[in-house]
């Protein structure tokens, strides 16, 4: 008769594999493989030019990658909930202008300015979220429109660009370092902020909110029946995304200064990073740290191209090829994972969809 009778009264174990097995399994999924890819790119860079092996250089590199990594983290919340956020770059641009024009040289405004920026970020996210969930306009369109409107408004009010960079104290957040650290000699503040946000993100994704977020992305109807406020959960994802963009903006204005182009292309960069991280467009699968790793991989790729002195004009092409190939391979891994998966439940390729553990998070569905 059916297998139900065979497993009497033996409590189900929490995990199908030991920690080691899970690690191994996870590495075979896009969500885990991205870490390997990033590592491989780093090694390649170091081989191509040993100077990049210097810990100080690496730590600085990680520091300057923080903004895009944070943006990717924000984009992750939206994508895992089954939506898009194309308005990130616009939010960053807006924040840069506020930093330049409102805060400027006046250190006494640093705090109020920061609060103001966070409020604006949250508000933009709220608008995106409500338009998507209540008006039921596709988020691709909502955030595209937001991108147009916000950029235009900021440009108009600021006369195209911020008057001047904010004072150095404010810029410290994006530019400063902790000095006199052994081995790596310095630790950039952005890296610390990134680390904190990563920890927060992992924690958040283990919280009921995080799990519900993924459930909503996986099946909104089922989540609704389960009692989730789908509209609010998604809206919160958009708010988180805009807040992430805000933080990225704060770091960028410190790191790079003010310019209309600051943050340009961040929406696509972030989405690419997230997808490279094995998070599925359409929602329901993926691990937040994989998105971060995706961001590092992309930045490492840039650096590698620089190190290899690839002709400036050819870099885009190389990037394009790598992105497509990576995602195509991921898609393969996914279909394979599925086939074996349905053949027998006990199969490592499809272990653990829960981001609460190793990078396994059902990221075994790579691209769609």
């Amino acid at each position, binding site marked *: 008769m059916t297998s139900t009778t065979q497993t009497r009264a033996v409590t189900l174990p929490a995990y199908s594999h030991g920690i080691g097995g899970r690690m191994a399994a996870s590495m075979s999924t896009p969500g885990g493989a991205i870490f390997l890819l990033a590592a491989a790119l780093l090694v390649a860079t170091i081989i191509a030019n040993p100077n990049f092996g210097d810990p100080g250089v690496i730590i600085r590199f990680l520091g300057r990658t923080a903004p895009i990594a944070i943006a990717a983290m924000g984009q992750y919340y939206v994508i895992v909930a089954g939506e898009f956020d194309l308005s990130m770059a616009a939010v960053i641009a807006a924040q840069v202008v506020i930093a330049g024009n409102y805060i400027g040289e006046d250190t006494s405004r640093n705090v109020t300015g920061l609060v103001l920026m966070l409020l604006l970020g949250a508000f933009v996210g709220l608008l995106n979220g409500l338009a998507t969930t209540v008006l*039921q306009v596709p988020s691709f369109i909502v955030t595209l429109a937001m991108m147009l409107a916000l950029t235009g408004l900021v440009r108009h009010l600021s006369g195209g660009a911020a008057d001047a960079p904010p004072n150095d104290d404010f810029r410290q957040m994006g530019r400063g370092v902790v000095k006199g650290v052994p081995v790596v000699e310095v630790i950039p503040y952005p890296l610390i902020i990134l680390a904190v946000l990563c920890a927060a993100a992992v924690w958040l994704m283990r919280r009921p909110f995080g799990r519900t977020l993924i459930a909503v992305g996986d099946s909104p109807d089922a989540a609704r029946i389960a009692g989730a406020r789908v509209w609010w959960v998604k809206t919160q994802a958009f708010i988180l995304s805009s807040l992430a963009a805000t933080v990225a903006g704060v770091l960028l204005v410190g790191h790079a200064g003010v310019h209309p182009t600051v943050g340009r292309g961040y929406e696509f960069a972030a989405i690419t990073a997230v997808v490279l991280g094995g998070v599925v467009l359409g929602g329901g699968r993926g691990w937040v740290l994989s998105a971060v790793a995706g961001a590092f991989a992309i930045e490492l790729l840039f650096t590698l191209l620089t190190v290899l002195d690839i002709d400036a004009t050819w870099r885009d*092409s190389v990037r394009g090829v790598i992105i497509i190939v990576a995602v195509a391979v991921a898609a393969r891994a996914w279909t394979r994972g599925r086939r074996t998966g349905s053949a027998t439940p006990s199969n490592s390729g499809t272990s653990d969809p829960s981001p609460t553990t190793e990078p396994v998070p059902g990221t075994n569905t790579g691209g769609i």
Partner: protein
Amino acid sequence: MSDITAPPPALSKRLGGLTATGIVLIVLVLAVVLGSVLTAVEGRNFFSTGNLRDILAATSVLGFIAIGQTLVILGGSLDLSVPFVASLTGVVAAGIMAGETGNVAPALLAAVGLAAAIGFVNGVVVSLLHVHGFIATLGMGLIISGYIASNYQGNTGSAPRSFRLIGISFIGPIPVSTLIMLGCALLAILLLRRTRTGHHLYAVGGNPEVARLSGVRTSVPIITAHVLCSVLAAFAGLLLLARLSVGNPTIGSQGQYDLMSIAAVVLGGTLLAGGKGNITGTIAGVAIFAVMDNVMAVMEVAPFLRDVVRGAVIVAAVAVYARRSIDRRPARFERPGVLDAALQEAR
């Protein structure tokens, strides 16, 4: 996926009879009326030849691309590489023409062939390698832009006068290019309504599994749509070449045609998820943009503010019918369906 929320019956009743396309057309009419009023306020005539030409000329380039984009979106994919295809075909054709009428034919062949090849690759990557259209075409865009940057610095080649005529000749207030674009629209409509590929495109976009069970080879329509989309982008590129008289390697990106075409398609009532929508709506969407831009230019709205208006209009317009495109079973007691009505009589 059918959402289980019930839209307020009032709304659904009021718009009950109207299709999304119907609404878009109404919005277009409103835009024209509003436009002519505002233009009049500026002391101009909205329907003057020059103004109509300005509007229609604006529709043709985006029109070509939006038609292609509609096909791809109907199939459940997306194409972000169109601006680069337009640029590439423009410079390639310009290079081959080199100002000689004799070279026009080979130039067109080369441009269209090249575009078709690109579209084919897009289609294969999407349908056979299962890469999401967003990523596949984003990557393809990068590849092409790299190639262009490496091989074409600045404007190159030149179009012979004979070819430039396409860009600058009019029949009354109507630019020839617009007529060609509308011709393509008709062909696309024919494709969707009267060919198997068209029907299968809707099926695959609507539900690949059902299509498969019905014996449809799902990759064929997807690839076809991508090929046609790229070819139409090539037409846009060639039209731009005709108007510019030289190949400009950045012309595609100058017009933001990728995102704007998608916006126009959705504005036209096509479901971004695929399986539902039509060309007529898309053309209306494109026209709405054109009218909007024209009026704002006449009113000398500050350049940066125009994007604010565009953004607002896009969301507002889509919101009007977005809620209705969700498929639900007809209510039994408040809005009887065919069968239900019969049953109630029986009772």
